[in-house]
């Protein structure tokens, strides 16, 4: 029974991080209609920035408990990066998809090289953040309390994002621009502001995913590409552009992956791709996608 609870918690932990990445990817696609190949790199930048900041803070004698505050700072740095990059991508929104894929793939390579340049090829760790919280006992097994914080952040992020999109004035503008940017512009809406805000929110979510996972694992080059592939599986299953789809897709991928690691580790990823392929065949727009 304890093992089952821990496996469920592991799935929810993983789903939280995947949701943060996939929801950002979906949000950016939903508004700008651009599949951002560099999205995984924003996740990696969040991880590197946070790990570096935590390392500096600990070296300066900041108590480990305070380093929690550096997680949102790491995500905010990625959002700022998004604010700088979005206007550069804007000329490609009306271009064919192959141009968008090439440009954002180029951005992915640039960001990977910049991370290599800034932090070198060695992994960066942010262990003190995780170590600041106790280890819990569930039945006869131990479980880090930090993982529960990650699950909580995922739930809060999902609720906040839902509230922003469906309850705020900005959300009304976002959904309108997502449906018809020409008409939104004709109404006098500041479409540029909507674009840069949506991109920054998407980057913040990816950065938060990286920032929050780095205390449990190291930041390494290439982690963004692994995350991007899984985020694509999530949005293929859930439906690109759908917030509900990102949530349900992240849960499906996480639970299947956790079960896969337990029962069929050799084909764990293959099963995920198979599910994505079946969804593509049966419902090409994904479970919650509309177009």
């Amino acid at each position, binding site marked *: 029974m304890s093992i089952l609870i821990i496996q469920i918690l592991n799935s929810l932990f993983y789903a939280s991080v995947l949701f943060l990445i996939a929801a950002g990817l979906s949000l950016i696609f939903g508004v700008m209609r651009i599949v951002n190949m560099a999205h995984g790199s924003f996740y990696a930048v969040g991880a590197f920035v946070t790990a570096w900041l935590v390392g500096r803070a600990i070296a300066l004698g900041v108590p480990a408990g305070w380093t929690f505050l550096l997680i949102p700072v790491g995500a905010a740095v990625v959002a700022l990066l998004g604010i700088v990059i979005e206007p550069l991508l804007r000329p490609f929104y009306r271009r064919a998809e192959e141009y968008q894929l090439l440009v954002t793939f180029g951005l992915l390579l640039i960001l990977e090289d910049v991370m290599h340049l800034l932090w070198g090829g060695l992994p960066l760790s942010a262990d003190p953040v995780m170590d600041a919280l106790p280890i819990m006992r569930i039945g006869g097994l131990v479980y880090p309390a930090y993982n529960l914080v990650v699950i909580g952040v995922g739930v809060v992020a999902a609720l906040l994002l839902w509230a922003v999109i469906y*309850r*705020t*004035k900005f959300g*009304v*503008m976002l959904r309108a621009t997502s*449906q018809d940017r020409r*008409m939104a512009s*004709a109404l*006098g809406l*500041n479409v540029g502001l909507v674009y840069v805000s949506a991109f920054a929110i998407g980057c913040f979510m990816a950065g938060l995913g990286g920032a929050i996972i780095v205390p449990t694992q190291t930041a390494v080059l290439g982690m963004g590409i692994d995350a991007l592939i899984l985020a694509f599986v999530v949005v293929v299953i859930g439906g690109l552009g759908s917030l509900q789809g990102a949530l349900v897709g992240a849960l499906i991928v996480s639970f299947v992956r956790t079960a896969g690691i337990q029962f069929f580790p050799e084909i764990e990823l293959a099963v995920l791709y198979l599910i994505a392929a079946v969804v593509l065949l049966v419902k090409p727009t994904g479970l919650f996608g509309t177009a």
Partner: protein
Amino acid sequence: MILLQTIDLSKQFGDVHACDRVNFTVNKGEFLSLVGSNGAGKTSLVNLISGHLAPDSGRILFEGTDVTFARIHERIRAGIARSFQIVNLFDVLTVFDNVALSIFSRERKIVKIAALADLDRDVRREALDVLSQFGLAAKSAVPAGGLAQGERKLLDVALAYALRPKLLFLDEPTSGVSTREKTQIMDTVSSVVRAGAVTAVIIEHDMDVVFRYSDRIVMMHEGKFLADGTPQEIRANKNVANILLGAPLSA
């Protein structure tokens, strides 16, 4: 009192003169109809004035200020709004949110965009007031995609009206609806804009509608103005009749 004036406004597409040195004036408070056959240049003229097209030459003055090269949102803030020939609504949003969106975009206050949309009492009151005026209050919670064609036409006008324009251009507000609905739409639009003291310019092909609701009628033909006068004067103009019947112009 002149509200809008174009001076030698021109726009050419290849060899076609969509607007050929057009001098157009709109007086404050009038309900003006812009008529002419397809391709006469009516929609191009409105596109130039609303900022959806850039002119090749000429000037546009609104309340005496040159807005020739102003951006769309700057013209909206100055008081120029328009609806479109093909209805463009945000079908995924409710009828209420469509109108609220117009109000938000009119405000353009960045600090307020994170506010909860349905808790802004001023916006709510104003949006419901606009919907009531257009007879759509009962449909406020319905997605715009679920409206009938006549209601969609009215909502399209309501979106432009919610921008609180001084000058409102309506591009074929009754196209694609039944004769009975045309009267309902025009009665509603006419009473709302007159009650709100909004100057209106409609592009319309149905001459019964044009003669019934207009204070003044301007006829365009091949990018130029052919006639300008009261409904009585236009009725008596042989060139107008010839154009409408497809006959050659008299000398």
